[in-house]
């Protein structure tokens, strides 16, 4: 589904975020990118949906190269979940979820928060999937951290994406809420067959939930293994 070839990224301040990465992600997989802070995993994820420009290399999505021309189409097929949820506080939960459908909404009417009935139903269904249907008309800033991340997930899945990119989805949550969110992501992966690429820095969560773990450090892939074949030594390599 995704193929990354010789990807490199250096920030204007000289920081080498990605030294060289070659990678393949298959349809329906739950892949975790594991690494310490500053290892380049966020840059890698953001490069896939165009939030970060790349210096050299190529990224393919369903055998189609990602460039300025193909990016809008790829963004329609991709959902993203953020560490800090990135919700708009002063609008309702359902409007936050509907914002995930802006690409397919009337450019004029959506500016006034007017959506089709079907779109609203899809938003309610997404909220039901994440267990927040009862909070649809609450204001987003009235929710707890875990609930806010659930809204973030509903916003990402409402457009029925083929790929879900989750950038440290549980880094701002307590352990109980973290497990609940990871359970939800796994459920979405299995139920809707959505490919998930998830950035994490917690080894236990990566081992528990992923099909495959890609260890990354200093912009290089340290290992790329199926979960079952991993041992503690491989894991320690990326954190030491």
């Amino acid at each position, binding site marked *: 589904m995704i193929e990354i070839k010789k990807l490199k990224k250096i920030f204007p301040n000289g920081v080498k975020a990605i030294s060289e990465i070659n990678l393949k992600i298959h349809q329906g997989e739950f892949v975790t990118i594991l690494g310490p802070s500053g290892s380049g995993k966020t840059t890698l994820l953001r490069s896939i949906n165009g939030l970060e420009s790349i210096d050299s290399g190529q990224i393919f999505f369903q055998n189609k190269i990602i460039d300025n021309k193909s990016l809008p189409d790829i*963004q329609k097929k991709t959902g993203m979940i953020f560490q800090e949820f990135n919700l708009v506080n002063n609008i309702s939960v359902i409007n936050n979820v509907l914002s995930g459908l802006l690409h397919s909404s009337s450019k004029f009417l959506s*500016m006034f928060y007017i959506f089709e009935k079907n779109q609203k139903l899809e938003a309610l269904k997404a909220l039901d999937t994440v267990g927040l249907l009862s909070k649809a008309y609450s204001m987003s800033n009235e929710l707890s951290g875990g609930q806010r991340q659930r809204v973030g997930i509903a916003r990402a899945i409402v457009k029925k994406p083929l790929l879900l990119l989750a950038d440290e989805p549980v880094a701002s949550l307590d352990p109980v809420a973290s497990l609940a969110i990871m359970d939800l992501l796994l459920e979405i992966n299995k139920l809707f067959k959505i490919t998930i690429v998830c950035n994490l820095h917690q080894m236990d969560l990566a081992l528990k939930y992923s099909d495959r773990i890609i260890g990354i450090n200093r912009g290089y892939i340290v290992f790329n293994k199926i979960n079952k074949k991993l041992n503690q030594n491989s894991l320690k390599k990326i954190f030491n």
Partner: protein
Amino acid sequence: MKKEKSLIAFEKYLRNQWSFKHLMILVIFLLFLSLISTDLKINYSNLFLDGPKYFFDILDRMTPPDFSNFSGLVFSMIETIEMAILGTVLAIFLSIPFGLLSARNITPNYFIFFIARFFVVFFRAIPEFIMAMILVIAIGFGAMPGVLALGIHTMGFLAKFYAEDIEHINKGPIEALKSSGASKRQIISFAVIPQIIPSFVANNFYILDRNIRMATMLGIVGAGGIGYELQSSFRMFEYQKVSAIIIIIFITILIIDNLSSYIRSKIK
């Protein structure tokens, strides 16, 4: 185990609270103030020698306040408030596009940003008093030049406030919408406007509050309202009427000021 150190051990770290540098800055500042006063030919001794005599003389002529035309004065005060409301609404409408275009993070390009900022600074730089004087000559006496002067001048303020608010919003929601393929207008509508709404409302009330105070002044240059009454009474040496007008202005502004502060505190 470590021994507790004697206080004497720390004496070498002591420094004067005020250094020679601080003293020099103070001397230069005082010198600067005295140079300005000399240039403006301000004689502070007059303020204390002749000032009180004339002040008590005018105060004597202003008392007791003459409220014989109370209803007329209240009517003029209402006209002033109406002028301020219209001016504020005009300022809000004008400042929304200018505010959006002069915010660095959402302006379409640097050229438009520069043009928008130019107009915002230009209209903020011309006081409404001068603008009203020009407009009175251009379109005649009455409320219209006052409304336009207030609207155009405070547009400069509001647009600046809006632009600064937009520049300081949380960028996370913008990024989230961008990643899902939303257009720039949709991002403004969904991620920018909801974030600035509380300060938008608070700023508008602040400007309304300010415009009511300024509208009383604009009457002096012929833009109608209570200011016009004030100017007329001054010209006719009717100082008791002047004091009545000042009392009415004071009470109105006191009410508006408290009301505006209350509403702004509720919004925050």
